[in-house]
């Protein structure tokens, strides 16, 4: 007979019960305290405020928004702005990271030196300083009337970058982009999924190009269907009085944030890319060379696929970090999710509800991102445990 406390299973069960019980008691206690405090302050908790109009405007919005629109709509504006900023920032950071990371692993001394300077400079300066720096740079550009013309219909001014846009409804723009991204997703799926492994390489390339073309065409069709009546399809920005009319204005705040996240994130991703390429065994590369593969084939069929497998788990982590870095928007007044929630708290006093919505929103974005990337990671993971290199 074992003494009670020495029985392993009993002891584990008792610890579990104590742990769960303590956790439930803690949450319950916090809720009760909050409830009592809110009652004392006379705040009515609940989500009714979401349907009241805000009475204030936001500086940048992808969808129509006026001061008389309700709170749920301003939260949606902020959520979409965060997604938009994160999408631009992550894509640019990846592009920079791959270029700099490859430079750091190249055999060219100058490329390695430039890569090292880039990484050490931008990785070691706090992100918020970089945001302020780029914001200061972009607000020092000349005003609209002296704007720098980058190309026909593209202008750089202190109020932002003006580019040609389309006169289409917000919904069709959104749907068109979603369709195009879905097409890219299918292409990634074809590349990674087991069921397409045995397809002829040439056919696979043709299929991917076909899907890309179909997605682009479908996007164009959706844009065309959603065009605004009585306006030209393409709207080109033109100076009217003191400011530009037409086209799309990419605000100075958005530009500064996207550039900061791209440059700062790029320095981290560069190190991940470098590590990934370093992790590829010399032997696999030599084997690929010895069967006669060209330099590009060695890279695209062996070196890059193996490096990507080493990068994926760390890259997922980095992307999630960068999505959270979009909350820097509040420092320079970009209406991202965090900033609209903060203003809403000030204006409505519904602190707990709004913080709950903020947390749920970021949880939704990052959980989805992690789930997708982990799924890809699992699909391409190396199989077996007898590998040597």
């Amino acid at each position, binding site marked *: 007979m074992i003494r009670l406390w020495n029985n392993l299973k009993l002891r584990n069960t008792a610890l579990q019960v104590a742990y769960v019980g303590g956790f439930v008691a803690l949450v319950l206690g916090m809720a009760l305290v909050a409830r009592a405090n809110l009652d004392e302050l006379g705040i009515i908790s609940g989500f009714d405020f979401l349907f009241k109009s805000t009475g204030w405007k936001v500086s940048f919005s992808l969808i129509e928004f006026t001061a008389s629109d309700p709170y749920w709509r301003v939260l949606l504006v902020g959520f979409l702005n965060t997604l938009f900023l994160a999408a631009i920032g992550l894509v640019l950071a990846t592009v920079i990271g791959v270029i700099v990371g490859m430079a750091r692993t190249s055999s060219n001394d100058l490329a390695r030196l430039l890569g090292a300077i880039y990484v050490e400079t931008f990785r070691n300066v706090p992100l918020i300083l970089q945001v302020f720096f780029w914001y200061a740079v972009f607000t020092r550009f000349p005003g609209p009337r002296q704007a720098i013309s980058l190309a026909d219909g593209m202008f750089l001014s202190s109020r932002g970058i003006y580019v040609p846009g389309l006169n289409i409804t917000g919904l069709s723009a959104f749907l068109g982009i979603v369709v195009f991204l879905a097409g890219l997703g299918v292409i990634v799926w074809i590349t990674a999924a087991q069921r397409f492994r045995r397809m002829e390489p040439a056919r696979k390339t043709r299929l991917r190009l076909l899907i890309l073309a179909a997605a682009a065409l479908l996007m164009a069709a959706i844009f065309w269907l959603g065009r605004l009546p009585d306006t030209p399809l393409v709207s080109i920005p033109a100076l009217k009085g003191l400011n530009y009319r037409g086209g799309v204005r990419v605000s100075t705040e958005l530009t500064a944030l996207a550039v900061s996240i791209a440059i700062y994130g790029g320095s981290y991703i560069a190190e991940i890319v470098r590590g990934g390429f370093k992790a590829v065994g010399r032997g696999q590369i*030599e*084997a*690929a060379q*010895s069967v006669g*593969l060209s*330099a590009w084939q060695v890279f695209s069929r062996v070196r890059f696929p193996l490096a990507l497998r080493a990068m994926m788990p760390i890259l997922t982590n980095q992307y999630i970090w960068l999505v959270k870095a979009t909350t820097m928007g509040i420092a320079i007044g970009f209406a991202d999710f965090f900033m609209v929630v903060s203003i809403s708290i000030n204006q409505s006093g519904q602190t707990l509800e709004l913080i709950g919505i903020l947390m749920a929103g970021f949880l939704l974005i990052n959980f989805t991102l992690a789930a997708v990337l982990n799924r890809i990671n699992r699909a391409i993971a*190396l*199989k077996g*445990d007898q590998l040597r*290199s």
Partner: protein
Amino acid sequence: MTQSNEPAIVIRGMNKYYEAFHALRDIDLTVEQGERIVICGPSGSGKSTLIRCINRLEEHQSGDIVVLGTSLDDNVANIDGVRREVGMVFQHFNLFPHMTVLENCALAPMLVRKWSRARAEEMAMQYLEKVQIPEQAEKFPGQLSGGQQQRVAIARALSMQPKVLLFDEPTSALDPEMISEVLDVMVSLAKEGMTMLCVTHEMGFARQVADRVIFMDRGEIIEQNAPEEFFGNPQNERTQKFLSQILGH
């Protein structure tokens, strides 16, 4: 490109340096087509470096290397051309871990020889049968034992239908019970007339199939002879010492 009686490999006055270290000294070596050569010597003697120069995994600094009539110089087309016709088997197998066994074998024929997937896989299956693991075709390298992986590596090299095969210590990383399954495959290739250069410490293999055994030490070819002469009557003092060390127990 090559005449039937032309030598497969001609190396003349070849030198190789790693910075200040003189790794290979004035190597002269001619390998006839169909010849089977075993290269042995103490660790660090330059045996691996020598065969790695033959498919330009290592660059030589002076002298000439002509493989199947193509001179190895800075011309990428020449290097690629030689690699197409010269297969290599490595000590650590170096299979592509993200591809199945069949894909490992069919990759280069599809990309380099421009064969259809069907044709490349059919040929690959033939070579997997030759190394006696067709049943593993759909597995990944990490799911096979060392001996099986090395046999896949031989099938991968054969799938390009090379005229010359280089073996760089193919059994040194294997557990003892797996060495014979790899050696059996190499013996059958040798009997079929494949031109082979093997860096190996398997002296039994050398006695059985080699036309010529080459002994290297400190970057030089010290002695070369037919196996009976080489093992029975070694001329050089260093060869005698080496042989007494590896055969002495």
